[in-house]
């Protein structure tokens, strides 16, 4: 970007403008609980040829204080919700009187690696499913329980608990086969300039990551850290809710969490993060 260069020159010239401090991704290393090394920068997947060379976790664009909170499960406020979801996992619900645990036993075994592959094509159902959709399918069709509202607390907490079982594993979302059409739709949405500000996801997260937009340090808008605990609202946040906020900020009419558009977008954005470690639950401002 020539503007990055311009800004850099301006900075070197010793400008006194109250620029939020410039600079791209930092060089810190993420090690969780002192033992799990996390891949937070990786070579971009082949489908990103011409768009990105390297994919970078959103963690690298946050302040040291925020970053720190994610390094230890005792400091990570998102882990409280993971504990809550563990209780839900063991609780029987619905007409079948079953709990998740009855069929899936210990999530540390049954759910290891699962989060890294979602959203995922489900052949029998003939659809791309997000993790929340799959959990709801189990609730409705296996347990005889009600579906959780999309991105509501219980659903996102469960998603975080399942994510923890894949923490450190590289994102590995499939974009071919049955998923291909949905992926293409998601890609189109990613590059569409919406709203009265006419900005696409790519305008901010591909063309300008590393730059500040007002007080916000733009990342690549990756989803490997989701669900994300946000200091702003002190709870875990789902991917679709984040998308909704970003679309709204272009002065556009947004899509709803759980909509076909956001499912497609989630698949596409997740595939842009292939190779990055699953971080959920991450901590963000």
């Amino acid at each position, binding site marked *: 970007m020539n503007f990055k260069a*311009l800004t850099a020159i301006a900075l070197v010239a010793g*400008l006194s403008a*109250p*620029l939020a401090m410039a600079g791209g991704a930092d060089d810190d290393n993420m090690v969780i609980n002192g033992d799990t090394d996390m891949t937070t920068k990786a070579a971009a997947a082949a489908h990103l040829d011409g768009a990105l060379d390297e994919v970078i976790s959103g963690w690298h664009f946050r302040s040291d204080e925020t970053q720190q909170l994610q390094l230890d499960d005792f400091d990570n406020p998102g882990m409280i919700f993971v504990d809550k979801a563990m209780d839900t996992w063991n609780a029987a619900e619905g007409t079948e009187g079953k709990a998740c645990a009855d069929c899936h036993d210990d999530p540390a075994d049954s759910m290891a690696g699962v989060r890294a592959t979602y959203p995922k094509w489900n052949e029998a159902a003939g659809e791309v499913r997000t993790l929340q959709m799959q959990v709801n399918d189990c609730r409705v069709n296996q347990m005889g329980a009600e579906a959780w509202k999309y991105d509501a607390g219980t659903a996102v907490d469960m998603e975080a608990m399942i994510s923890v079982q894949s923490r450190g594993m590289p994102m590995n979302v499939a974009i071919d086969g049955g998923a291909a059409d949905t992926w293409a739709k998601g890609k189109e949405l990613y590059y569409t300039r919406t709203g*009265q*500000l006419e900005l696409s996801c790519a305008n901010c997260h591909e063309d*300008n990551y590393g730059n500040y937009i007002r007080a916000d340090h733009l990342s690549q808008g990756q989803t490997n850290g989701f669900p994300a605990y946000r200091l702003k609202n002190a709870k875990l946040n789902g991917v679709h809710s984040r998308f*909704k906020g970003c679309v709204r900020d272009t*002065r556009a*009419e947004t899509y709803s969490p759980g909509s076909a558009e956001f499912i497609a977008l989630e698949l596409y954005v997740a595939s842009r993060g292939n190779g990055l470690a699953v971080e959920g639950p991450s901590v963000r401002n």
Partner: protein
Amino acid sequence: MRLTIITAALVLAAGMSAAETVLPADVAYGEDGAVEMSLTGKAGDAAEGAIIMSSKGRGNCISCHAVTALNDAPFHGEVGPMLDGIGDVRSEAEIRGIVADAKMTFEESLMPSFYKTTGYIRPGNAYTGKAPTEELAPLLSAQDIEDVVAFLLTLKDS
């Protein structure tokens, strides 16, 4: 946000009585995107222009541009170029064209089109995320544009 809409509506309404106000659809862009004629026929107020550029609910220009003269407002962004000295390098007509609709000067520009009301994909009702309930107002009124142009013309190095 609601305030902005009301302000914009008032300014528009006020503007309409002045027969000279050029509507967004009628702005005459030159081949290079410049706009020679004032949108209101009324001189711009540079001090007001400075306020518009820093206000989150109005131009919010500093979210993308650093401007030393606006250092009182915090957090200048880096998405667009620094605007110090722009009054030396660009003519009034060029600046008016860029502020009214930057896409006429810079193809596919990331900079929002501030004096335009049509051609959007899924426009919303300001920052509510909801569909608009009435016709869209431009992001800035004609006089806002003139005020911003007047301010930018004061940014001279020499």
